[in-house]
């Protein structure tokens, strides 16, 4: 059903998209961009977006190429997921230009030489901010977009209940580092083991996506992600140290000289249903062995309908690495 409706809309829109642009009823709520030390995380819950009128509106934001991509997905659910993912990244970035109105439709995306998607900033006339970095991740029930300024970012979300088809340890032995396998093998409860596996997976994915050089540049077996007891810190950003017992760090296995201490991680439970991992490149000032927790602001959104900052609520439960 969705496919047919969208196809008709697509044909019509070629002639009349100008009209649709002007028909915006409720604008996007502008948001101050993240500061250099901050990370923003936005997410959509597809189950909350049922209005076909709204979906049609989102569809109009997409480039022809993105629209084609939506059609290539098999089935309504996957098509909606693709549509919402593109909508999320376009509307999110558009919000940050608070001085002048930049239409979400006006962004062009490209891939860097390694295939990582980014915005073509030079084509934008009304953009007066430093380039924003973004990264998307989605499951069937949640679509997330992380945003930073001046710092590469990678995110990954997985459903907490996700079951592997393969045996967890077999999978880990095949793809994870020896240290990680040992860690998982030491967990006797299969459910807890599975959960820790999923957390590790999201962290490893987030790291590789932050690196942005493709998976072949950092095969999962070549680096270890681990929880390290945090050093005493003189400065606490928020004044309390709830989740700060451990830092998350990454070590390169075959290249110990590799600068891996310039990556900062956060791991959290999102919307009670997902694990979310975020990896950003630290700026040089934090240096040394200590890691300040990631300053993360999380917002749930239905673009043009409602936005809700959920940081500090039950929708965001820090596991490690963040305030």
């Amino acid at each position, binding site marked *: 059903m969705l496919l047919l409706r969208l196809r008709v809309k697509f044909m019509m829109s070629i002639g009349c998209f100008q009209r649709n642009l002007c028909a915006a009823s409720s604008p996007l709520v502008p948001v101050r961009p993240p500061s250099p030390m901050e990370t923003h995380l936005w997410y959509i819950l597809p189950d909350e977006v049922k209005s076909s009128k709204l979906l049609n509106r989102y569809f109009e934001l997409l480039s022809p190429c993105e629209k084609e991509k939506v059609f*290539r*997905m*098999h*089935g309504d*659910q*996957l098509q909606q*997921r693709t549509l919402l993912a593109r909508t999320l990244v376009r509307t999110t970035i558009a919000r940050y230009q608070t001085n002048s109105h930049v239409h979400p439709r006006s962004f062009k995306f490209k891939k860097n030489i390694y295939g990582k998607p980014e915005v073509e900033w030079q084509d934008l006339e009304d953009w007066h901010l430093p380039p924003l970095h973004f990264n998307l991740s*989605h*499951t*069937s029930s949640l679509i997330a977009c992380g945003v930073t300024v001046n710092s590469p970012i990678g995110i990954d979300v*997985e459903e907490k209940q*996700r079951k*592997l*088809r*393969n045996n967890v340890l*077999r*999978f880990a032995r*095949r*793809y994870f580092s020896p240290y990680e396998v040992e860690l998982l093998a030491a967990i006797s409860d299969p459910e807890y083991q599975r959960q820790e596996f999923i957390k590790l*997976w999201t962290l490893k*994915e987030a790291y590789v996506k932050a690196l942005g050089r*493709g*998976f*072949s540049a950092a*095969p*999962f*077996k070549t680096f270890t992600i681990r929880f390290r007891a945090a050093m005493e810190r003189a400065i606490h950003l928020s004044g309390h140290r709830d989740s700060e017992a451990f830092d998350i760090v990454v070590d390169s296995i075959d290249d110990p000289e590799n600068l891996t201490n310039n990556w900062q991680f956060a791991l959290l439970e999102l919307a009670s249903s997902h694990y979310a991992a975020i990896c950003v490149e630290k700026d040089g000032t934090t240096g040394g062995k200590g890691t300040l927790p990631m300053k993360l602001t999380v917002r749930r959104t239905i673009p043009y309908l409602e936005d809700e900052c959920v940081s500090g609520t039950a929708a965001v439960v820090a596991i490690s690495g963040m305030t």
Partner: protein
Amino acid sequence: MASVSATSATFRVSLKPCFKNNQVTGGTSTTVKMARAGWAKNVFPTLRTSRFNVCCAAKPETVQKVCEIVKKQLALSDETELTPESKFAALGADSLDTVEIVMGLEEEFGISVEEESSQNITTVQEAADLIEKLVQKKPEA
């Protein structure tokens, strides 16, 4: 991609009469596919043509097995129509699914896929091709 050139060397020998030289396509994997299907002289090796060749090249039972494994991993119904060109991502596979599919293929065919290669498998056909290549290499190993 050293394995690709090794394979193409083998094929070049066996199809010498029909196959002029690698310069037709600059020695890319397209060349390998052309040689494998036994096409020769008159057809210009466009990507579309070589894909058609590849369809005939990998054994149907290999493609079939790949489809089964993909359907199982992605929990697709039996009625779901998969073609060799079906993209895993378009079927809803994320990177964890892709890795699990590769593991399933390794088990089924008794092969070992390099991690770099496993992330590059995006369609049923690509999986089938890689399997055939690795299966053929097995006795030599």
